């Protein structure tokens, strides 16, 4: 399983290779898409943690108003 540091290192290597023309654009695009999927998984983990710890903060980041609590009279 790759960590975020590994993904970042791979992306940097790919960036350098693409800049020098050592990698085809199509291959680079596919690798970038795979890296994006890893990052999305990490993003979901973070979102889950934030939502459990602080739902109001999570909703604020999603540009959604927090649900109003219903008060019993």
């Amino acid at each position, binding site marked *: 399983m790759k960590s975020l540091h590994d993904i970042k290192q791979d992306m940097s290597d790919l960036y350098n290779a693409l800049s020098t023309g050592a990698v085809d654009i199509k291959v680079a695009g596919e690798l970038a898409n795979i890296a994006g999927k890893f990052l999305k998984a990490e993003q979901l983990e*973070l979102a889950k943690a934030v939502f459990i710890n602080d739902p109001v903060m999570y909703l604020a980041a999603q540009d959604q108003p927090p649900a109003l609590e219903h008060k019993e009279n």
Partner: protein
Amino acid sequence: MERVCKQGHTAEVGKKCPTCHAASSAAWRARNIERVRENTRKYAAKWRANNLEHIRGYDAERRAKWRAKWRANNLEHVRGYAAKWRADNLERARGYAAKWRADSPDAVRESTRRSSAKKVEGITPSYIAGIVKLPVAALTPGMVEAKRAHLKIKRLIKEAKNEVTT
């Protein structure tokens, strides 16, 4: 100096007719038209000075109404004119830009390099937080670095694709 009132009586200028108390007559007005005009001007100036706010309000309201009506009647014309102007000048502007690019390749290369560098510098944690829809405080440094590298490579791929197609 004497004048004749509407009833034909003779009276002094500047005073009402002592017989019928008429203020003025057409004949007197014709003879003293300059004086009448001067008096009218003075009266109007005084009235304007006393009613300045009223005049301004009235003028503004009338102008706004006229303008709204004119815009409603000429909207298509205005839009058409603006579209034509844009189209005409877009071609001209594109021509100038293309000529400048052809004449100064070094400047174009430097400008492209600077704008690319600026784009990369612009990938801030808050920008990344906006993309991943999370609070900035919730992002880990590893996530920021990885996402920044990912965005950089996506931009590079996009630029490379544009160069290939153009």
